[in-house]
């Protein structure tokens, strides 16, 4: 390596070494190399983990999606895995369900936390208690929370919690997970309950950064509560709203444990199959890791498309 050939200039005695970040111009090459090596030595552990468990699998997933391994022999098969995965009868339902879930989750799981945060921000009492309550479900292991919904809330008989409430209100009861139409809404309700705490806290933090004078001025101009939300609160939290929208889309694309536990996988008439569940099915049940890798690449491309649209939309607003 080149480093060994660099001559070391002895440091002048008595002259204090300079701070790393503000190096004077007369630093010797040897010192520079040594500083860099120290810096990289501190980085190496994390970088290695990224290389092995993130960056390399990224590339490998793409390569795998064009290969087929049979009896230890790997051959290049072009787009075969892709055509096989697209031909799976669950492929389109899985995408449909995932998008449906994303849309529902954007309406419920995205708007509700924002309004809950606005509401909590107005209260001067019981704030801490309410914040703890909202965040409590986030701390449950997801399997625990989902079994709770599966066994109690979504019990299709009248003993189920939701059906008992509906019956008390004289509303028609539902079959919940046994009914293909209710599967997705039921999964979104469970998922929102489980996950909204994090979003509420993030919104609360950004609501607290809004200068009070803005509301003051809006009020003097005669703006009512809704117009104040529309013209002050939303524009002032635009960045964080946009960021969480993107994160929400990435998160909902991974819909997996909800169908697995609530619907035992595919659900009634494939109404619960998600893309992530299909990846799991192909990869770990049908022993078709290459097909699963191809589906992963398709998911990545779809998400990249989302990101591109998102970047354009947010760039336009500025």
């Amino acid at each position, binding site marked *: 390596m080149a480093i060994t050939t660099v001559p070391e200039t002895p440091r002048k005695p008595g002259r204090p070494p300079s701070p790393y970040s*503000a190096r004077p111009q007369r630093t010797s090459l040897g010192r520079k190399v040594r500083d*860099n090596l120290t810096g990289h030595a501190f*980085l190496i*552990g994390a970088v290695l983990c990224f290389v092995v468990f*993130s960056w390399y699998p990224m590339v490998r997933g793409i390569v*795998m999606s064009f290969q087929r391994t049979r009896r230890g022999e790997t051959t290049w098969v072009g787009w075969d895995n892709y055509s096989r995965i697209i031909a799976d009868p669950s492929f389109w339902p899985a995408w449909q369900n995932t998008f449906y879930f994303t849309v529902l989750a954007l309406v419920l799981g995205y708007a509700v936390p924002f309004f809950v945060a606005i509401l909590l921000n107005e209260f001067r009492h019981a704030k801490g208690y309410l914040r703890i309550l909202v965040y409590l479900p986030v701390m449950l292991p997801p399997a625990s929370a989902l079994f709770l919904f599966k*066994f109690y809330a979504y019990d299709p008989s009248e003993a189920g919690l939701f059906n008992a409430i509906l019956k008390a209100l004289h509303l028609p009861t539902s079959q919940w997970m046994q009914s293909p139409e209710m599967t997705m809404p039921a999964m979104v309700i469970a998922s929102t309950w489980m996950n909204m705490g994090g979003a509420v806290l993030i919104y609360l933090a950004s609501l607290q950064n809004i200068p009070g004078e803005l509301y003051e001025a809006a009020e003097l101009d005669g703006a009512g509560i809704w117009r104040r939300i529309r013209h002050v609160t939303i524009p002032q939290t635009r960045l964080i709203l946009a960021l969480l929208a993107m994160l929400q889309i990435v998160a909902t694309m991974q819909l997996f444990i909800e169908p697995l536990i609530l619907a035992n996988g595919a659900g009634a008439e494939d109404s619960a199959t998600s893309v992530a569940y299909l990846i799991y099915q192909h*990869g770990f049940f049908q022993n078709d890791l290459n097909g699963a890798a191809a589906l992963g690449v398709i998911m*990545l491309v779809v998400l990249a498309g989302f990101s591109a649209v998102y970047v354009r939309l947010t760039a336009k607003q500025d």
Partner: protein
Amino acid sequence: MAQDSGTRTLISHAQLSRGRGRVIYWTLLAVVVAGFTLVFLGPLYWMVTGALKSGQEIAQTPPTLFPKDPQPQNYIDAWNNLALAKLLFNTFYYAVGAVLFQLVFDTAAAYSLSKLRPMFGNVILALMLGTLMIPAMVLIVPQYVTVIDLPIVHINLLDSPFAIWLPLVANAFNIFLLKRFFDSIPEELMAAALMDGATPLRTLWSIILPLSRPILGVVSIFAVTAVWKDFLWPKLVMPSPETRTVSVGIYAFAGGTPMNVVIAASVIAAIPTVIIFLIFQRNIMSGLTAGSVKG
């Protein structure tokens, strides 16, 4: 955050403390407190008491609010039949290891990126942050293939705790959080330490880390909850019943176990994280908001 009653929000303080505003405020507060208690605490109550009910009582219409004939046996069965002690120990062990690995490697990396700033540091940081946009599901298959046969060294990590610990180190969010915190530590402190002849490691240990306790706490809590909440990855890389985590264990048993016992097991599995949360909730709240972007 509870003390900020002086700052102006959507509705002015004066409006809320006078006449009609005051009535509406207290009514709304009462409704929200009651509603939230019902929505967020209610199901937990249902879960804890439901696990005490007998099979018949659970299937009864209308459902009972209190268990008529409490059966603590369900909890005992859950503890014994599912070997919950072993499952909880495994999960705890993985969580502690995850904290240590992340603290050591992610702190060192963030320190390097923030203070030592070696060549290509920004490129490395950008590549790390890029992984935030890739959902775990996209990588699950190639990551699994990598873990069962690590490149170059050809080691199989199945059933080894390293299969959980090492991938968690590749956590761009933590590194970003730590780097932002280190960035806020004045450069002069670094210069002074260097003047005194401290090595970078010494500076990290004696100056940066003591100042960074809050953020280190946050990263630790995130690491614990990540292990506690993860499902698919431990399910894949810990296939043996002896190495399972608690979430996976409950799922694996759910098929052939009575439902109240499964619920009892779920309650027991939830207790440790809920306790951790109640103890550290202040740190968690501030940690979540420290990572947020100003809107």
